């Protein structure tokens, strides 16, 4: 039973994450320019490191 609940929760989390990514692709945050945030090019992965 616990096994089924854990699997179901993982599934729900995965669906929620994918929906969020889909929404983000079509509605980028202001200031992010035209970047759809696909994390392919490296631009979207700019480090937050401070000097």
């Amino acid at each position, binding site marked *: 039973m616990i*096994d*089924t609940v*854990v*699997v179901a929760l*993982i*599934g729900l*989390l*995965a*669906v929620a*994450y*994918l929906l969020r*990514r*889909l929404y983000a*692709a*079509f509605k980028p945050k*202001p*200031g992010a*320019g*035209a*970047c*759809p945030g*696909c*994390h*392919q*090019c*490296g*631009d979207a*992965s*700019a*480090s*937050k*490191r*401070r*000097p």
Partner: protein
Amino acid sequence: MSTNPALTLALIGNPNCGKTALFNLLTGARQKVANYAGVTVERRSGEFADTGGRRYQLLDLPGTYSLHASSADEVIARDAVLGGLKGERQPDLMVVVLDATNLHLGLRLVLELKAIHRPLIVVLNQIDVARQRGIEINQVRLADLLGCQVVTTVAIARAGAAALLQALPGFSATPQTRLALAKQSVEDLYRQVDQILLQVLTNPGRYPHWQDQIDRVVMHPLLGVLLLMAVMFSMFQAVFAWAAPLMDGITATITYLGGMVAAAMPPSALRSLLVDGFFAGVGSVIVFLPQILILFAFILALEDSGYLPRAAFLLDRLMRGLGLSGRAFIPLLSSFACAVPGIMATRTIPDPRERLITIMVAPLMTCSARLPVYALMIGAFIPRQAVLGVFNLQGLTLFALYLAGIFSSVAVAFVLKRAGGRSQSYPLLLELPSYHWPRLRGVLIGLWQRMQIFLRRIGTIILALMIVLWFLSSYPAPPPLATEPAIYYSLAGMLGRAMEPVFAPIGFNWQICIALVPGMAAREVAVSALGTVYALSADGDALKAALGSIIQAQWGLPTAFAFIAWYVYAPQCLSTLVTVKRETQSWLKASGLALYLFGLAYLAALVTFRIASWITS
């Protein structure tokens, strides 16, 4: 508690003068830098503090030679300076970055900026290189003539921005005003530039002779093209030859770990999710990390060396005849990494039609997401053997696939050029940067970022898609007297079988059809999807063999070749389609791109499947 930055600064200057390197140095960001013009096509924002703790917002703008913009990236730089960019305030201070080895080009922009009467500070970057070449600049005289502070920086050195940081506290916020460009004649501006240079350049220095000698070979119409081919050829040979031991190690580790999990857990849904979804699905993509890193090591080293703009210049005449120009070379080259930055880099192309054609063909260039698909197929169907005793057959096949992408893009560009009317001709004016040895630190940082990007994609979007695919492939449960594997009766199985009649003519079975659906999100997802689908299709509980061995046993050569041909063309990347829509401001154009590429993919796969079936029968 956070406080608003005291000042907003904008980095502006000619392309490839070191603005982004300075931005990275000041803010600690790691935005992409390379030794050619047009790398930054969108403004980036970051924050930093000076030694006194005063905080600044810093905008990194696309490079421009003038405020009178002619291309989309230059418009962004101009609008940011004038305060017309939505969501950004007008900069309080403009940090005008000049390449100290080439003041002539940069000073025109300084004079234009002075004419809009906003505070500015001039930064002479690459002052170390200028000094090495014997260039002597009278900094005090330059400051007098320009009427602003002039400081020197070395953006690639750790303490290279010290002089700029010391100067910043002297500036304060300025009121936001409506600004307009002053009308100035270009001839007048350059006359003023010449006057200034006469007074400040006490020694113009010498361009290193060895760089000219290299250019004699690199930019030779025949030798240069042969060298370019040799460079690309070596790159793809290395991708297969060097990566094999590492890939074997990763495969063995994943198989071992998956086997341990399978042995430790009783049969259950959770075990199936871990073994068939995680290890078989996600694990089948992670294997390709070494190949991706080797490919990027070459690309990063070439980007840093100064070779790439020369290749663009070399190909200008060839590309012009086919409907493009050397200007399209950099965007198309960026598309080898990913079509998204490639499409964004088309902003540097001033001719709207040429820009649209470049956008339309950029997804045909072989992006790094195709590499796992190609490598899987090549590894499974092309033997690891030497050709002529030197070359690796697998590397040769990969090289041929990259060439297929390049030739296809050229052919499509040729057709699109002929299909439209005449357009204005823009000559290619390309600044050739100095050669230098690729900096090891820069290449290593770039590789580290690529690894993070790849692993993040695997740990997020690919993992999430595999979990969803596992659910769709596992439910509903099969009927009591089922003769086929459980996945056959699942939702995914039903979908795959519904799609099968459409794809059967190109040799795709229902399992491949299933993998194509999540593969719409990104190309490499198809590899992990195949891993999960075949793991769930196999009999028994033990961890299944590596994906390559499974498809080698179950697919014929015609299907494998048709699958490769499909992936040369298919626009299976949602991010690319969204970016095309955003850059063209048109869903119609994005849909047109998807339709023509899917059409080409189907046609290429059909022809490949028929020919391969005929040869092998």
